[in-house]
C-alpha cells in the first residue's frame, strides 16, 4: 500500500434531510496517515456524511474528490480503494465467519499479507472461524465485520461507530489495528462516541452540530 499521493477532499458539501439542512459548506482535506473524527449529536448527519463519502449517497451540494477525481465518476475504482463498516455489520448470519470473509475478500481488493484465519485471530476469534455467525455474540459479530478491514487492501477506511458492542479488549485491539493502518499511510474517517487515542496519527475533528 503506497501512502504517497492519495488524498480525499470534500468541498462545499451539503446535506438536507426532512427539510432540515443538516450541514452545508462543509470542506475538509484528508491525507495519508490522517484520521478524521466526526462528532455531533444523534441525527446531526454523521452517518449521512459517511455515506456521501462512500458515494452511496448523493450530496445535495458539493463534491468529493479522491486524488482530484470526482468519486461519482470513479465508481468501482473508488470503491476498490475504500472499506466501509456501517451500522449493520454486513455479514450473513447463516454463514460462518470464514465464509463471510471469503465473500468480502472477493468483493474487494485482497490483502495478500493476511489470511482469513490470521485476521480472525487478530480480533480474538480463534476457534470461531467455522461457527455460523448467528451463534456468536453481538461483540463477536462486530469483530468478524471489522476483520474485513484486514483482509482487504484499502487505503481509506470509513467507519460508522466501529466500537459498538466491543469490550475493552476489543477496543484496544481495534485501536492497534487502526494505528498500524495509519502508520502504513492509510486514512480513516470515523464516527464514534468513544475517545479515540492513536499514537502518531493526527486526529482532526469536525463537529456537525455546529455546521449548519
Amino acid at each position, binding site marked *: 500500500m503506497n501512502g504517497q499521493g492519495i488524498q480525499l477532499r470534500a468541498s462545499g458539501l451539503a446535506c438536507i*434531510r*426532512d*427539510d432540515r439542512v443538516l450541514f452545508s459548506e462543509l470542506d475538509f482535506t484528508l491525507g495519508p496517515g490522517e484520521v478524521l473524527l466526526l462528532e455531533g449529536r444523534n441525527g446531526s448527519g454523521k452517518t449521512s456524511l459517511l455515506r456521501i463519502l462512500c458515494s452511496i449517497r*448523493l450530496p*445535495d451540494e458539493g463534491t468529493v474528490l479522491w486524488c482530484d477525481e470526482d468519486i461519482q465518476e470513479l465508481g468501482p475504482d473508488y470503491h476498490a480503494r475504500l472499506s466501509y463498516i456501517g451500522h449493520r455489520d454486513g455479514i450473513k448470519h447463516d454463514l460462518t465467519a470464514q465464509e463471510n470473509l471469503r465473500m468480502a475478500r472477493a468483493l474487494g481488493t485482497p490483502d495478500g499479507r493476511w489470511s482469513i484465519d490470521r485476521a480472525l485471530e487478530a480480533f480474538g476469534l480463534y476457534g470461531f472461524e467455522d461457527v455460523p455467525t448467528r451463534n456468536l455474540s453481538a461483540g463477536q459479530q462486530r469483530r468478524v465485520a471489522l476483520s474485513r478491514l484486514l483482509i482487504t487492501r484499502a487505503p481509506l477506511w470509513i467507519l460508522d461507530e466501529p466500537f459498538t458492542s466491543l469490550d475493552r479488549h476489543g477496543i484496544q485491539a481495534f485501536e492497534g489495528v487502526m494505528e498500524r493502518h495509519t502508520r502504513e499511510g492509510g486514512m480513516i474517517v470515523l464516527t464514534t462516541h468513544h475517545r479515540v487515542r492513536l499514537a502518531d496519527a493526527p486526529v482532526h475533528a469536525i463537529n456537525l452540530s455546529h455546521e449548519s
Partner: protein
Amino acid sequence: MITAFFHKLSSPKYFYGIAGRWIPWLGGACLLLTLAGLYQGLVVAPTDYQQGESYRIIYIHVPAAWMSLFIYMVMAGAGAIGLIWRIKLAEVIAISSAPIGASFTFLALITGSLWGKPMWGAWWVWDARLTSELLLLFLYLGVIALYNAVEDKRTASRAAAILAIVGVVNIPIIHYSVEWWNTLHQGPTVTKFDAPSIDIRMLIPLLIMAVAFKLYYVTVLLMRARCEVLERERNSKWAQALVTGK
C-alpha cells in the same frame, strides 16, 4: 441565448414566475380550440354510414389515447434528464405529468368503453387497444404509487424516473404483444404515412381536438408544476416571501 434561457428556466423561482404568465394564454387557446373542435366534430362533420352518430365519441377517445402515450414519453424523457443531469425542474415536470397522463388514459378507457357498447354490445371487450390502454394505466399508477411511497422527494423522483424509463422500453413490447393476442379493434384511423381512411371532414375536428388536448396538458402541467415547485422550495426565501406577502 437559448442555453442561457434554459439555464434561467431551470431556476425554480424563474420558472414559477414565467409559467404563471403563460397559463392564462395557453388556457384561453385551449378553450377556443376545444370549442372549435367540438363544434366541428359534433355539428359539422357528417354522419358515419356504418356507425351513425355514435362514432362521434372518437373526438374525445382518440386524442385522449394519443395524449396518454405522448405524456408517458414526456414523463420518461423528463425523468431521464432529471436523473442524468440532476435538474430539479425536469424532476418536477416528470412527476407533475404522471397524474395528467393517468387521467387521459382513464378517459380513453371510459370513452372506449362507451364507444364499444353500441358497436359491440358490451361495456368492456378485451380488444388490443383497450387492453394496451389498461396496462398503460397500471404503468402510470405504478409510477405514482412508487413516488408517493418514498419519503425523501429527491430519492422518490429518481426511483420514479427509473420506473418510467423501464416502462417506456416496455410500452412497444406490451403494445405488440397485446395486438398479437387480439385483433378485434378496427385498424388505426389516422397514421402519418398512410392516407387517412376516414373522410377529411371527420379528420379535421380530430386534429383540432388533438391540439386542444395538448394545450390542456401544457396548461395543467404548468399549474401542477408550479405547486410542486412551491412545495419543494418552501424553505427558500422567495417562496416564503410569496406566501407571507413580503
